[in-house]
């Protein structure tokens, strides 16, 4: 199932081996952040179990976009579901490193 929000990110979700995989591609910025945040919150709450946030298709993220990730991490801690953020070795990885957030989020680098 794919959902195209008003912004420039595309979202889809699927359950594999009991884990909910939320796949996001496109550009994660202020125009997409609010919708992405709500979408992650909704699906994660409905699922209740482990969540994988697959961001390998995210071509661009800025600090407004990173807020959606911080928010997902906070929600996971608060509501007690496990979170795994999977990224490629690209712009998002660099931006996370520049921001200093890479050490504060459960980020895993995997090839696309």
């Amino acid at each position, binding site marked *: 199932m794919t959902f195209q929000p008003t912004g420039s990110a595309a979202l889809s979700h699927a359950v594999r081996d009991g884990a909910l995989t939320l796949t996001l591609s496109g550009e994660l*910025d202020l*125009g997409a952040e609010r919708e992405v945040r709500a979408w992650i919150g909704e699906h994660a709450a409905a699922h209740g179990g482990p969540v994988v946030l697959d961001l390998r298709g995210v071509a661009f993220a800025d*600090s407004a976009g990173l807020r959606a990730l*911080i928010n997902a991490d906070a929600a996971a801690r608060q509501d007690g579901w496990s979170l795994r953020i999977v990224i490629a070795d690209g*712009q998002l990885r660099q931006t996370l490193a*520049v*921001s200093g957030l890479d050490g504060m989020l459960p980020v895993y680098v995997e090839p696309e």
Partner: protein
Amino acid sequence: MAPEPGRWTVAATPDQVAVLRRAVCEYARGAGITDGRLGDVRLAVSEAVTNAVLHAYRDRDPGEVRVHATVEADGCLAVIVEDDGFGPLPRPDSPGLGLGLPTIASVADAVELTAGTAAGARLSMRFVTGG
């Protein structure tokens, strides 16, 4: 042969961040910027326009964001993001992470924040293109 300066004016709304980011990147590409530097420009412009959208008008109706890009005599790319809002004012209730200005400073070669020409804030960024 430097291109003509680029000028864009949009409403200070979240969807316009992507619009300006793409416009300035296209300009920078036309000016022959390297791929490495293009990523810095893209991120810095995105952060600067995001600040204008988030902070310039706060509870007011969103006004304008104006962007001006130009290649200077020394080959540097200069990008100016200007709004007509409150001016650069601290904001303890900022919805942001406080990462915008330091992110811009870390990818641009220089960033200058001043009051706008009439009101508002004016953020100037310079990128050495080395080409």
